[in-house]
């Protein structure tokens, strides 16, 4: 009897438990788009992975390559570490994104001029590196010094911007699965970034996507790598903790 009661309780509670599970944008795709993402040869984002792979093996000003430490195909990179980004950088006293980490190595260990944040080459390297962790569950630690940045990102996620007076949560927390004209709204999860957008036909970093959102609100976007974007990345990635990395995801 007790066993039956327990099972009944679990059944009753299960929708609540499911409701808390983040849902990848993948689940909102049509079957043929899912198949396109899953097929390495059909996924248009793989061209960017290949470009990143080439840069990964390009000697810097000191003759060193990313691959000297991390392996020719990045096989020495730890997917578990990649899945933890953004991580806390004690020297900065701020979170550090995967893209910033790649750029830091590019300058510090290869003696190169750092890339402009969000430029094609840097996004390609980021895409290649994050692709190495494909399938690894996102795992941003927000328990320690990251907490205030997570909270700042969460506040931004709930802040209305622009002439449209729109905030992220308004659509992505309340209307996932509904249609804006022909486009389906997702939860706005970030586990697929940098991702390939079929609409624009290009690889899109998270910051570029946030810029596009702000422009669609008719709001002035922030500067590249502004604290606001980094804090949002902390919040958004942590919000999707547990979702498998899909980079490069294919989205509409």
């Amino acid at each position: 009897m007790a066993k039956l009661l327990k099972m009944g309780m679990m059944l009753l509670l299960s929708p609540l438990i499911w409701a808390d599970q983040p849902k990848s944008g993948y689940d909102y795709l049509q079957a043929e788009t899912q198949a396109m993402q899953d097929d390495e040869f059909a996924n248009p984002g793989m061209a960017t992975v290949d470009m990143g792979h080439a840069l990964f093996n390009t000697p810097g000003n000191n003759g060193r390559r990313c691959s000297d430490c991390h392996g020719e195909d990045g096989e020495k990179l730890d997917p578990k570490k990649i899945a933890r980004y953004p991580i806390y950088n004690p020297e900065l006293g701020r979170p550090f994104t995967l893209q910033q980490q790649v750029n830091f190595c590019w300058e510090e260990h290869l003696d190169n001029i750092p890339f402009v944040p969000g430029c094609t080459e840097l996004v390609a390297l980021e895409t290649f590196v994050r692709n190495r962790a494909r399938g690894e569950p996102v795992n941003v630690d927000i328990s320690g010094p990251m907490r205030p940045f997570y909270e700042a990102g969460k506040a931004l996620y709930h802040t209305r911007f622009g002439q449209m007076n729109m905030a992220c949560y308004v659509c992505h927390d309340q209307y996932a699965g509904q249609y804006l004209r022909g486009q389906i709204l997702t939860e706005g999860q970030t586990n697929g970034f940098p991702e390939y957008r079929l609409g624009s036909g290009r690889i899109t970093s998270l910051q570029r996507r946030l810029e596009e959102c702000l422009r669609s609100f008719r709001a002035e976007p922030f500067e590249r790598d502004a604290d606001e974007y980094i804090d949002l990345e902390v919040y958004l990635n942590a919000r999707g903790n547990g979702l498998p990395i899909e980079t490069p995801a294919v989205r509409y």
Partner: protein
Amino acid sequence: MVCRYCQRIIISLLPLVVSPLAAAEGFVPWQAVGDSIPQPLGGLTGDASRGREIARRKDLGNCLACHRLPIPEAGFQGTVGPPLDGIASRLNAGQIRLRVADESRRIPTTVMPPFHKDPTTLNQVADDYYGKPVLNAQQLEDVVAYLMTLQ
């Protein structure tokens, strides 16, 4: 030719000429009573056929992004908001006016953009749209007039 001195005077007077034109783009304050704005904005009269066009166009009302409307030529229509067929049999003009002007007055977490809200209350507006509501007073009245035809 106009001398430099006169040119300066003309330039300095330009805003006086231009500002009444700009006012057509600007915000016209309104008074809400309960869940309604009973008085038409600026005492203007709406035109339903213009309102239909504003509702359809992506660069104006873009109502179809979220709502279904009896505008068959528009193709994809959104499902975020309620369908608006028959809206005039459920709401009066004043109630529709408040919902279009600023639905967040009724529902703070609403997804619906405010189409005629005091621009000074908005955050980080892009330069191109700064100081302007999404629809001017006439356009808002046109949309209200159109929606009132949906019995």
